[in-house]
């Protein structure tokens, strides 16, 4: 096994909210043409048929109101441009049309094409260029948060394409249960920001296994004391709220929350790991977004192995059933480790099912039962396509001063 993987003891996943790859990282094509972002030939038609090009006009806040629609029917429109033909091809031509539907304002609908400059997002920019950025990490479903996050926890959404509570169907287990019930036993934890922000995984994990959860303050303490579990899943702050320690600004980057607050949060997670030398040498951090939030991206999601569930035409809201045989829109994803060469760009296809697939494979080896989607998902710590490939640990990794 390569040196970086030999030393790996901890996997940390930080899952942010609702931003597309092109929106956050698209500007990086200008500094590294291998990063598949914004180019001059891209556009979307507005409702008058005029082409709207992506523009570097994204703002940290107050620009994406109302929250762009990212439920299944809207994402279907965004991906297929409104075609319902059985032989339709994904063309990513319906984003402006979809956003227009919410306010009937042609000018405002163009906001959905805006992207950030590198200068606006120093944290993501540095991490993406200093470590490994994924050109083809897609949401698991062309739909909203809850079902997409389910793939990160269970490798399936159990047939759901919406925001409704779902039940875990036998024989599948969450990645956390797999780890803590294994022999030898492993450790796993979900860290929500605080009890006022809590978790999105309520009905199954929080309700039934609250002992799996900790706060972000505990995450910071566990990093400092060297007590981080084998696997950690970190959730950002989902709301503006007051606590005894002051006003907490939402850091999840969900529109219309402040994107800069999310940058600071990502830097905080990175710093917490890096400031403990032993932990830094033995940890990899995946920063990934749950779905695109209705915001423009130019890469058509590919087809994939169908799951064993099918969402009915009634459930999808499109008049067509969905066999979970196509991924959602592309999202930002960055893998951080001092064993990764600077400037790494990954072109293999990943989705959130890759998270439990990789964590399970790394800590437990072969494991079943798992969903067809998880079983077929690529591993981001695959020894055969090793990203932690350096023979010696880097000493030139950046620090963030906040």
């Amino acid at each position, binding site marked *: 096994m390569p040196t970086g993987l030999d030393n790996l003891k901890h996997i940390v996943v930080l899952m942010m*909210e*609702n931003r597309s790859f092109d929106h956050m990282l698209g500007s990086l094509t200008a500094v590294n043409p291998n990063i598949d972002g914004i180019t001059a030939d891209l556009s979307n038609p507005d409702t008058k048929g005029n082409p709207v090009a992506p523009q570097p006009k994204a*703002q*940290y*806040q*107050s620009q994406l109101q109302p*929250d762009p629609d990212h439920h299944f029917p809207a994402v279907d429109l965004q991906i297929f441009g409104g075609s319902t033909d059985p032989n339709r091809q994904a063309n990513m031509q319906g984003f402006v049309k979809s956003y227009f539907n919410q306010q009937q304002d042609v000018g405002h609908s163009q906001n959905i094409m805006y992207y950030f400059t590198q200068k606006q997002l*120093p*944290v993501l920019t*540095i991490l993406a260029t200093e470590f490994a950025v994924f050109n083809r990490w897609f949401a698991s479903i062309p739909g*909203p*948060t*809850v079902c997409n996050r389910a793939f990160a926890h269970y490798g399936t959404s159990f047939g759901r394409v919406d*925001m409704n*509570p779902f039940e875990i169907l036998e024989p599948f287990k969450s990645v956390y249960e797999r780890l803590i019930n294994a022999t030898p036993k492993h450790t796993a934890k979900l860290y929500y920001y605080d*009890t*006022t*922000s*809590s*978790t*999105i995984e*309520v*009905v199954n994990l*929080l*309700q039934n296994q*609250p*002992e799996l959860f900790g706060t972000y303050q505990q995450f910071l303490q566990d990093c400092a004391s060297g007590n981080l579990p084998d696997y950690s899943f970190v959730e950002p702050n*989902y*709301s*503006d*709220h*007051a606590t005894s320690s002051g*006003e907490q*600004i*939402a850091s999840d980057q*969900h529109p*219309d929350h*402040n994107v*800069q*607050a999310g*940058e*600071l949060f990502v*830097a905080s997670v990175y710093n917490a790991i890096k400031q403990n030398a032993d932990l830094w040498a033995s940890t990899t951090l995946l920063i990934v977004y749950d779905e695109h939030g209705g915001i423009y991206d130019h890469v058509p999601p590919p087809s994939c192995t169908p799951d064993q569930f099918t969402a009915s035409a009634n459930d999808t809201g499109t008049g067509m059933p969905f066999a979970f045989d196509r991924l959602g829109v592309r999202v930002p994803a960055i893998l951080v480790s001092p064993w990764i060469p600077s400037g790494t760009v990954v072109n293999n296809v990943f989705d959130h099912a890759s998270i439990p697939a990789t964590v399970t494979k790394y800590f437990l080896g072969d494991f079943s039962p798992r969903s067809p989607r998880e079983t077929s998902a690529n591993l981001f710590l695959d020894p055969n396509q090793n990203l932690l490939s350096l023979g010696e640990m880097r*000493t*030139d*990794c*950046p*620090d*963030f*001063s*906040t």
Partner: protein
Amino acid sequence: MTVIKVPALDLKQSAYDPNRPISSLLKTQVEHLHVAEKRLPSRYHCEIYVNAIRTEGEAANYIRAVTEAIHAAHKEAAALRVTPAHKRGIEIAAVADERSECQRKPRAVKKNGKSAKGRGRA
């Protein structure tokens, strides 16, 4: 080693706003927690009317109340679970004691000693 300076928040743009209308994500989170709350013993219910939640701050209050109640209910159950086994007659007495203790508890006990009851919306 490169030190990257991350700009401080521009408070003019990112004004803290707990009165922001509740997003679809927070609305979903509230709905899911309401499902969980209904399965809690009634003494852990927070008595916030979820259909009347309109702002992020109101949602946050409810989310905190139910999250803490879930933790408290599990903690209480775990404490009862580790109680040493007793003979049958004593077990019946223990159950009786437990019931009366539950009835005495006004509401979910918080870390600060306050009950969940009376925590109104922001």
